């Protein structure tokens, strides 16, 4: 049997297949379809310090081999998470990683600090694609200074594994990755969604209530692969590859490009069992290629 285990800083994962924030709910939505404990980890949906209603409907548009969303971080807030959601998450026997979001640095810090006290949350993933209200809504992750600033602030209060999730909507993702590494990140995950737009020609108006939204799904995979490759070459931190992964071959491509683990997002909507199929497929690939471990693949091109 090939060895699928991998490590991300202090986290030992039973396999490199995790689920992407905002696409897998809190895990229980998928418990009729797969054994959640078979996953390498679950990144649960974004938590902000205050409850958020998200953006008005319509928040979704299907596009060629992908979709746009403008959900807008709808969640019940930190207190509700701790009181009502965390106890359920404790029943799931794999790494549970909280996706920490905010519109101010203080907001991020508050969520990160609280998450640090929850034993079963073994890491946090900092979502720096959120709009920074003090900077006129420009995302934290699109400027070297604010990406560094938010990472540094969270690092101060968060002693466990700190994953920072990068936005692809930048001129140089390597510059942002370096800044975040300087700020004290332990692991980088990429990519978040690509800023995009859909128009209804018949109605002559944008499809989304917010006009623009985030593109995900197979359409973004080549962009994500390129960015993972660039970042993993430039920065000495483990990288988690995200973007359009639908099958084991896609996952292997990300390992080859330099990712130590991957997250599956939009593909969960099409096939709720896709993650277990991917785990099985990676095993088959390793057998076929006479490899003992998945780690041998990482960054080999």
């Amino acid at each position, binding site marked *: 049997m090939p060895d699928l285990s991998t490590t991300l800083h202090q986290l030992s994962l039973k396999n490199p297949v995790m689920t992407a924030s905002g696409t897998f709910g809190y895990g229980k939505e998928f418990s009729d379809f797969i054994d959640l404990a078979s996953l390498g980890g679950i990144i649960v*949906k974004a938590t902000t310090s205050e409850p958020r209603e998200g953006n008005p*409907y319509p928040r*979704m548009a299907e596009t060629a*081999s992908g979709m746009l969303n403008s*959900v807008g971080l709808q969640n019940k807030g930190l207190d509700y998470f701790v009181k009502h959601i965390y106890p359920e998450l404790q029943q799931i026997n794999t790494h549970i990683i909280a996706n920490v979001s905010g519109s101010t640095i203080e907001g991020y810090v508050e969520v990160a600090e609280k998450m640090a006290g929850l034993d079963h949350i073994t890491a946090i993933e900092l979502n720096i694609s959120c709009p920074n209200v003090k900077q006129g809504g420009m995302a934290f992750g699109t400027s070297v200074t604010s990406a560094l600033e938010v990472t540094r602030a969270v690092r101060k209060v968060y002693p466990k594994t700190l994953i920072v999730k990068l936005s692809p909507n930048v001129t140089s993702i390597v510059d942002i990755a370096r800044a975040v590494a300087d700020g004290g990140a332990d692991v980088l995950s990429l990519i978040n969604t690509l800023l995009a737009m859909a128009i209804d020609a018949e109605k002559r108006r944008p499809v989304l209530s917010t006009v623009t939204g985030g593109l995900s799904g197979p359409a973004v995979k080549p962009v994500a692969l390129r960015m993972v490759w660039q970042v993993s070459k430039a920065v000495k931190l483990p990288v988690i590859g995200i973007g359009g992964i639908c099958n084991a071959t896609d996952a292997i491509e990300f390992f080859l490009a330099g990712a130590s683990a991957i997250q599956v997002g939009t593909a969960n*909507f099409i096939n709720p069992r896709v993650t277990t199929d991917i785990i099985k497929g990676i095993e088959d690939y390793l057998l076929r290629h006479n490899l003992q471990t998945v780690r041998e693949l990482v960054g080999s091109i």
Partner: protein
Amino acid sequence: MSKVIHDLIILENRQPGPEYHVLVCKAPETLPVCYPGQFAEVAVPSSTHAFLRRPFSIHNVDYQNNTISFLIKMVGQGTRTLGQLPTGTVLNAIYPLGKGFSLNQAEPVLLVGGGCGIAPLLFLAKTLKLNGYTVHCLLGGRSADDLVEIPEFRETAEVYLTTEDGTQGEKGFVTQHSIFRELAGFTRVFACGPEGMLRAVALASRAAGVSCEVSLENNMACGIGACLCCVVETRKGNRCVCTEGPVFNVLDLKGWESPQEVADNCPVI
């Protein structure tokens, strides 16, 4: 109540109207218990266009023959692809999803359907009849071509018909049908169809003091409560149509009490 992913096999694909197909599908194992108003997320086979699954209400369930059917209106490439599938094709579906209509109501109940909103009402009518109800059912469409599955409805319900162009039944919108003048005599209205129609039915029910449940057709990505794309604004905030609906009591929906909204969304079918 657990959800299943099944490779259904299409046993029959009939066309009850020019723009409609009924797919009768055999389940590979015992059908899960399904409730009227619940739906399935169906993968469109070998389609590059329809990347996401498509939601369809459960149109009929036959536990004896282990079949489930869908009534599909051809509106875009996904539905057109489904309509052309030959018998024997495998259709991958996740079901039963969502919460259906409340079944424990006092008689008499009125079912109102427009366009593809007719779909869940057959299963609902059959279930209500099985529970001993007398069911009244008003079906509407743009023209006679939209009034499909009428013989099936007649087997289980007292049927009333209406078309906008007057080609069958009374002429006009569903809410202009004469049965609406007797609305106060019903204890509950169950409606499914385009939002404009649902809002008009909701207003009329409100005016008559009759409780009303509607089945919404918001766009969905996952159908299982994971993406939060399908929300409707309720009195308790944004709620997922795929898990807390698709059936809602109109009193829970925000903005559904004002005639202003109906004027904006003219009640067409």
